[in-house]
Each structure stands twice: as C-alpha cells, then as structure tokens.
C-alpha cells in the first residue's frame, strides 16, 4: 500500500498548475471565481485554450485527440482544472455523448461528431428527463415515428441544461410503444437543434444561471442515420453512461475548491474581533467537514488505484456520488454560515469580496447535486439491489 503520488506525478501536477496559471486570461480567471462561474462564451474560450494545448480530452483515446495520460494523471488534471475553473457545457460532449459515440456509434458518426466536440465547434445537451419521466426515466413518452428514411419526433424534454447554447441534443425517444418491457422500446437519437420544429425555452435556476431549458419537438424530422447503438437499444446505451458518470460525480475538485474558499473567507472575517479562522469553535466546524472530505477522498483514491491498474473500480465506488454530493452541499452551506449577513448578497459588484459573491449562487446551484445524475434516493435503490443484493418486492 502506498498513498503518495510519485515524484513524477507531483511534477506533472506542478506543470499543469503552472500552465493553467499562465494560460488562463485574467478576465476568465476572475469570472471563474466570481458569482455564477464561467458563462457560455467564457467557457468556450477556455475550451479552445485547452484544445490548443492538446489537453481538452485527457480521457479520450490518443488517436482521437486524447493525451495518453494514465488514470492518475487524468485525476490530477481534473482536480487542477476544477480548482481554477471547470468547463461547463463542454462536459456534455466530452464526457457524456462523446464516449457513447465512441462505444456505440458508427464510423460515420465518429468522424462527423467527435472532432467538432474536441475543437469546441459544436456543443451538446442532454434530452433524457420529461415532465412525467424523471426518476422513472423508462416511462418517457417523446415519440419517434418511423417515416421511411427518417423519424418524425414529437414531445417535450426538460432540464435540458445549456440547450439555449447547444448545437445538438442527444435524446432518449420511444420508438416501440408496444414493447412488453418499456425499457425495450427506447432509442438513443441525436437531433440537430437547428431542425425546424425544435423550440428551446430557457428558465432560470435557483443559482440564477440560465442553465435549464424546456425543449419542445413539434414534428421534427430526424434522419435514421442519427440512431446510436441500434433501434430500441437506447436503454443499454443510457446505462453505459451511468457507468461513466459514477466517478465524475464524486466532486473531489469542487469540494477541495470550496474548502479553500471557506477557509479563506473565514480568515478574512472576524468574530469577537478576532479572525474566525482562529476561533476554536469555527475551526472545529470546518475540521469536521475536512475530515469527512479526507475519508471521501480515500474512497475515490481506492477507485483511482484500481483504474490505474486497468481494473474496474470496486463496489465501493458506488457510494461516491451519494457522499460527494452531500458533502458539497454541507461545505457550501458552511461557507454561507461563515459569511453571516454577507450571505444575503446576490450578484452584486463591489458589495462583498468577489469570492463571497461566488458562494450564494454556487450554494443554490449545488442543491441540484443530490438530484442530478440519478437522485440520491434512486442511487440508494440501485445500491440496495445491485451491491447489497437486498430482496425486491
């Protein structure tokens, strides 16, 4: 057993950190650390800088534009990226639909879509949830009717984050309403958002980022060549994505980032005329969460240690989303508490320090953490069944 990074890995971290310090323009840096984080244009600018460096898709195969780094270097890179300012909309292409196209797509699809994802020329959003299909995703109703060489798509998708900026949407649609098992009548379909009949209506989230959308489809014509993974095979494709997401949602980088901010804020505020960070009670509150973070970090290191050896992470990786999302909520909540009355601030300039301005919106945004990517209640259902093998009714 060995819990330290090697000298080469530490040097790699320094190299990544130094480059990010140098390459990220001051304006982007300020925006990333401020209220709401990077907006769409800023995120695209950051994407293109990373692409030019060759670091945009470390987890992709080298021949498709990846870096060829091992699991540990990818982990380190992600941590550093999340510390300076995580990419936003890019993730949907790079980490969600991209890997699925690689795994299930045709050669033509790979050539058509992957390079544009890589270069930041096309952005993607996800069309899974519907107003009446949330946790019970398999009951989705958006239809794709067979019309010869194409489908006619009708219905509504919701929580389609960044659809207002995206070029394409990857959807789960119902292609066989008569299938005995509802999971078997679903197809994974790529839709160009510029197609006539598509209507995107953004809505504000609690964090006031215009991230969510309702996306409506009214007799939208979609060529059959946009099926990924075969007709009525959509559920299998979607499940593969859940596997990709598992370690992504441990939120190690974001947690570390908030912990840093939290301590910084506590060092600038006073209680009984002394810095809060010197007050044993406040230090203890922070310490409790930091110790929890360490335990969580060790679970993700265990998964990393498996991946580094080319093995699938063990069953304990299934708790990463459950623990990490709760932790980020507790951390942002403590940051709010440390700010006291300053936690009232909402997208002001010059009222509070920028780092404090960033907390409220982020706190609100991460209320979604325990809901997105399969709500934590659904996660528990799955772990109870798949890992603890508890009986079903």
């Amino acid at each position, binding site marked *: *057993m*060995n*819990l*330290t*990074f090697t000298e080469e*890995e530490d040097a790699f971290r320094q190299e990544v950190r130094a480059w990010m310090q140098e390459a990220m323009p001051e304006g982007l840096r300020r925006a990333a650390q401020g209220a709401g984080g990077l907006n769409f244009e800023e995120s695209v600018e950051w994407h293109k800088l990373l692409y030019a460096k060759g670091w945009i898709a470390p987890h992709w195969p080298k021949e498709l534009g990846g870096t060829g780094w091992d699991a*540990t270097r990818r982990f380190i890179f992600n941590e550093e990226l999340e510390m300076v300012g995580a990419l936003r909309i890019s993730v949907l292409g790079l980490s969600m639909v991209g890997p699925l196209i690689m795994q299930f797509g045709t050669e033509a699809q790979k050539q058509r879509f992957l390079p544009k994802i890589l270069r930041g020329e096309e952005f993607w959003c996800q069309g899974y949830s519907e107003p009446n299909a949330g946790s019970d995703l398999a009951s989705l109703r958006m239809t794709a009717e067979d019309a010869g060489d194409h489908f006619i798509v009708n219905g509504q998708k919701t929580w389609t984050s960044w659809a207002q900026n995206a070029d394409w949407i990857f959807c789960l649609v119902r292609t066989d309403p008569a299938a005995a098992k509802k999971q078997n009548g679903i197809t994974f379909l790529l839709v160009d958002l510029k197609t006539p009949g598509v209507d995107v209506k953004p809505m504000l989230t609690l964090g006031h980022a215009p991230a969510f959308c309702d996306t409506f489809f009214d007799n939208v014509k979609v060529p059959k060549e946009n099926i990924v993974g075969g007709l009525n095979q959509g559920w299998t494709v979607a499940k593969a994505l859940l596997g990709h997401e598992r370690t992504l949602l441990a939120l190690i980088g974001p947690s570390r980032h908030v912990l840093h901010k939290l*301590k910084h804020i506590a060092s600038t505020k006073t209680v009984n005329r002394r810095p809060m*960070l010197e007050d*044993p009670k406040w*230090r*203890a509150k*922070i*310490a*409790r969460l*930091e*110790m*929890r973070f*360490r*335990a*969580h970090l*060790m*679970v993700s*290191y*265990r998964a*990393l*240690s*498996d991946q*580094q*050896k080319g093995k699938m992470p063990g069953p*304990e990786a299934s*708790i990463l989303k*459950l*623990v990490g999302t709760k932790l980020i909520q507790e951390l942002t909540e403590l940051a709010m508490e440390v700010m006291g009355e300053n936690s009232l601030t909402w997208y002001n300039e010059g009222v509070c320090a920028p780092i404090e301005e960033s907390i409220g919106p982020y706190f609100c945004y991460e209320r979604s953490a325990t809901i997105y990517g399969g709500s934590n*209640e659904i*996660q*528990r*259902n799955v*772990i*109870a*069944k798949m*890992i*603890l*093998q*508890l*009986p*079903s*009714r």
Partner: protein
Amino acid sequence: MDFELDQEQQMLAKTVSDFAKNESPVERFRKLRDDGTGYDPAVWRKMGELGWLGVPFVESVGGFGGSFIECAIVLENLATTLVPEPYLASVVLGGMTLARAGNATQHESYLTPMIEGESTLALAYSEAQSRYDVSAIETTATPDGSGYRLLGEKVWVLNGHRADHLIVSAKASGGVTLFVVPREAEGVNVTVAKTIDGQEAAFIKLDNVAVADDARLGEEGSGAVVLDRTMDYAAAAAVAEGVGIATTMLQMTVDYLGTREQFGVKIGSFQALQHRAVDMYAESELLRSISMASMVRADEEDPRTRRGDISAAKYQLATGGIWVAQQSLQLHGGIGVTDEHDIGLYFKRMYALNALFGDQEHHVARFASEPSSF
C-alpha cells in the same frame, strides 16, 4: 497511489480471518467472558508461533520487520469474531511503546518474550484526570538510591490484571518518564473492573513501588513524546478493529434483512430499510478507506503528515462507525437487544473503541489545532 495489499499481506489477512472463523468463533469469546477466564494463554502462544505478535517489530528483537499495516490487518480480522486475546493491549500499546523507548537489553527481556507469545504486556498511562492527555498525570517517580519509587493510581489499564509486565508513566524531575514494572512487584495493587464490551481492565495503585534504574525506558522526560506516538498507533489500531466490527455488523444486518419476514415479505424489500442499509454501507466504506490511510500514516515520523489522517479516521469511527453500530441494532429489532444475539456484542465493542485513545471531540479539536490541516 496503491490501495491494494501485497501478496504476503493478503495471505496474512486470509490466515487470520480463517483462524477467527474456525478456531475462535464468537461462542469462544462468550464462553471466556462468562467463565471469567477472559482469554487463553495457549492461544496467545499460538499467535506468537504464527508470527502475528511480531509483525510490526524489527528482526533484531524477534519481529518480522513489517509495518503497522500488518498490525492493522491482524486487528481487523480478529475483530470479525471478537477474538479476546490482548493484541491491542500487548502488541500495540505495550509493544510499540517498548520498541520505541527501550534499549536492546530491555527489548530482549520484555519485548522478545511477548513476540514469542510467552508473556503479555500492558500500558498504564491513563489516570482519572487525564482525559486523553498523556502528560496530564500525577503519578510520581521519586529517586531512591540508584532507582526510583513510583506512587500514584492508573485507571482502565487494558490487560493490566494479566500482563507479566506493566509499562508505567510517571513524573520524574525531568518530566514524564516510562518504567517497566513486573505486575507482581511489591506495592502494585491491582483491582479488576469489568468493561462494557464483556472484557476486563485493571485499576492499578502504585504504592511506593521500588524500581531499579535499569527499569527506566529512555531518558527522564522522554515519555510524553513516545506516548503521543503510541496513542496515534492505538487510534489507528482501534479504527482497524472498528472496520472489522462495522463490516461484520453490516453483513449480519443485510443477512437479517434478507431472511426476516413480516407482512408476508422479506423486510429487506422495504425501501426505508434498504436506504438505511445503503447509508450504513457508505459509512462503513468511508471508515475502511480512511482506515487504510491511517494505517499507512501511523509509521510516518513527521507528525504533520501523520496526525491528520489518524484523527480523521478516529473521527469517522466516532461518527460513521458508531452510526453503523446503532443502525445494525435497530434493524435487528427486539432480538438485537438481547445478550443471546451476537449483534449486541459487536455494538458494545464499537463503543469501547470509541471511548479509547481520543473521542470525537478530542480528535476534532486536535485536527482543528493542527496548522498543517488548515
């Protein structure tokens, strides 16, 4: 970064776990508890023969030159069936202290026989007012001829009523100092007290006990630093044991949920209980993961890299580990609160581990006061 045990470590884990299952099932703990014997010197000798008592010690004293990781492996696996032999008290508390503080002659006289399973040790460090501070002691060591006289009272000395030798902390003019004292020396008055987990500990009155100069471990005043270090080993050891306890309790509970029927169905099919079980799984995996960090860190000399993960691990035992114990009992229903069912025995052991070597508040305060944590 590698969290996998090497091949020898995996083999050690398997051997100890097989021993626990086959040769010391919980009934054995129960029997020795009920007949007042506590543990069996013959089994202790066998552990010595198998080499388990020497895993963390250097070869020159008869050890196997391993690391604390091997110690933690033995502890975790012995805990799965509550094996009562005094591994923690004798190998970790007594042995690690002696190994660090003693000279070659003292190692040969006291440590080597313990490693061989011929004797056991105990560490008498805590006093009524100590509250996890190894320096907050009132026992004195007064010069007397070429040696010392020890005067004071020690509390909750694990294995203190059976050990061949006690390691006693006392204040000499140079500060906290450690001495080796035969349990049967004149003036050592031992009272046995039962503990919540079905074991026993000793209250020890030292009534002007005469010790020779060569019973002193190290220089006068060197004791506190050694004991601080031992407490880190002990905390990591308690956590390793806690992993064995938590994992076993979780498995027993999952098994129970899968067999017990009410309302005509297995109760494990109820979502409320499934979700509870999943949260128990999460807490026990967090405990196992941070325990791995603490067992590796325990051997680090630099306190700045050693303490953080050890406190974090003991904190997780106090929060997550205790919670797993509570919920295991709750999910067993009425049978869980009988002495007849094993689950309660594990429950009590978890609380004993929680109370030893720094509780939740102690480790939160320590972590919070550590500049390197912040």
